[in-house]
């Protein structure tokens, strides 16, 4: 297997897999919506999100809606590419069994 077929270490955890899956099919996604969808605590979710942010797989947008802060996330082109090849690698792995 070439380098491109290898599983991405960044997506090893289920939480990160969940975050990326949701962002693949939704545009901007609220922090709160993530918490509900993935059923997670703040600490757990925040650490995974900042991990993906550091890798520049997702971008963050902070803004005010009325007087409340609203934080939402979007997948980057790089993130999309990396996640796609991760899925391909998973499929290849399955087919090789």
């Amino acid at each position, binding site marked *: 297997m070439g380098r491109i077929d290898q599983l991405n270490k960044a997506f*090893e*955890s*289920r*939480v990160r*897999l*969940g975050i*990326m*899956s*949701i962002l*693949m*099919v*939704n545009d901007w*996604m*609220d922090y709160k*919506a993530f918490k*509900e*969808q*993935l059923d997670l605590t703040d600490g757990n979710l925040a650490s995974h999100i900042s991990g993906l942010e550091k890798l520049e797989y997702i971008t963050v947008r902070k803004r005010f809606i009325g007087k409340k802060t609203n934080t939402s996330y979007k997948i980057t082109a790089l993130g999309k590419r990396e996640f796609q090849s991760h*899925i391909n690698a*998973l*499929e290849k*792995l*399955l087919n090789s069994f």
Partner: protein
Amino acid sequence: MTDKNPIEDLREIRKMMESSSKFLSLSGLSGIFAGLTALVGAYFAYQQIMTFEKKIPFYIAQGRFEEGVNEFYFQLLLLAILILVTAISFGILFTWLKAKRQNKKLWTPLSLRLIISLMVPLGFGGLFIAGLFYNGFYILIAPTTLIIYGLALLNGSKYVHVDIKYLALCQMALGVASVFFLDHAFLAWVIGFGVLHILYGTIMYFKYDRKQKFWVESTN
């Protein structure tokens, strides 16, 4: 949290993609009851048509035929609104019950998107039909309701887990067919809103709702 099982990983990806982008609580029962409401409504409409046809000679004798026609169509309009309200109420009720059973929220950004995508064609379409009514093109109303309903379903279908695309296409096809065969427009309306709804609702119910219930029971 680390899991090396690729099958589980792919399943999780699929689940997350689906549950975050598709409205899962739409119940098949909603469709069945919408269809039943339409059939009952159509029965009453048929009664009204029969009564009206019997009264035509009297209207003509009294020299107020046009007045009679307008009154007749106004009654039909009231009946149509009653059918619509009843069907939507049942739809919301069963969807709410299903969401409750699945422990899911009904009011999410996703359901809002679904409602907007349905309401834009339905709203403009409804105004268009009001215009047809206003100008006396009564005969075109049944085909137009089918077309507009089909377009609205098609627009909303991307947010729903079940394939209502085919239901949408059937409704639009019926709408087009009935505008060419206006004599059978009433029949087309009964098939579209009555029979197709019941058929689709039943398929949905047995394919998704029943299975899910079984799944919940067996995992508990």
